[in-house]
């Protein structure tokens, strides 16, 4: 197995101990540095001192769920500090719309496998600004880009 996380910090927040440890181990083994939080306020507290490369937030986090956390972080019109994946057991279309509206990059329904969560994190961390496509200018008569005719 080749670690591909390059030590990037990923904050994982879930009230379920099994899910939290599972995701933490999978991220660590993949070469990421997983930081964990068990409640909404713990996420906000962690973000005061750490700037993760990505976040995974559970919709049903104790004390303040993912939406409340996202609302708090974007209250002043600020952007989210990093790409965010919202996960949830009963994730409906309205929840997905709300999460995306609050700046989340992606959503995933529970239950998921360790492999699926790694795939989503890797996708979120892929550079989104691809190089602009080369401008194709039309050719014209005597265009220097045209091959020269040989006698």
């Amino acid at each position: 197995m080749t670690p591909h996380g390059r030590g990037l910090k990923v904050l994982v927040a879930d009230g379920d101990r099994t899910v939290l440890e599972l995701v933490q181990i999978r991220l660590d083994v993949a070469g990421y540095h997983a930081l964990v939080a068990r409640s909404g306020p713990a996420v906000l507290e962690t973000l005061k001192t750490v700037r993760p490369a990505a976040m995974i937030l559970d919709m049903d986090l104790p004390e303040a769920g993912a939406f409340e956390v996202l609302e708090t972080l974007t209250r002043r019109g600020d952007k989210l500090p990093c790409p965010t994946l919202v996960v949830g057991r009963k994730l409906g279309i309205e929840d997905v719309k709300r999460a995306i509206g609050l700046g989340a990059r992606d959503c995933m329904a529970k239950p998921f496998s360790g492999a699926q969560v790694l795939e989503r994190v890797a996708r979120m961390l892929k550079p989104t600004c691809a190089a602009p496509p080369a401008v194709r200018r039309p050719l014209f008569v005597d265009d220097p880009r045209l091959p020269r005719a040989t006698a």
Partner: protein
Amino acid sequence: MSLAAKADLGLEASVASTLDVLAWEMELASARCMLLDATIGEMMKAIPEERREDFVESMHTVDLLCQQLTSLSAFTRNLSGAVSEEVSAPVEGALGEITLGALADRMATALGGACKGVDERDSAGEFDLF
């Protein structure tokens, strides 16, 4: 079943939820195996090259165990989605048979029981290395 008889059975949970909880636990076990696999991989670097072959089979077994648990987890997760939420089963007795306190506590909490806050490290005991 009478209400009194139901009360005697203690904690009840839907079969779908129980399978879901089992799937998560198997996925966690698989992740722990992966961690073990990675740790053994690191330790192998410290072993002289001529002796590494002696351990290759054991490493392969750990890898196989990871895959087995991942597959069983996927199977259980799929099964959980296929079972009606209305079918329930008494789980209290079965939970009582689990001797690892932290696992029993996690599963009981996930199935709607009370959380006792058992820590994995507290119940794991000391390492008996020597």
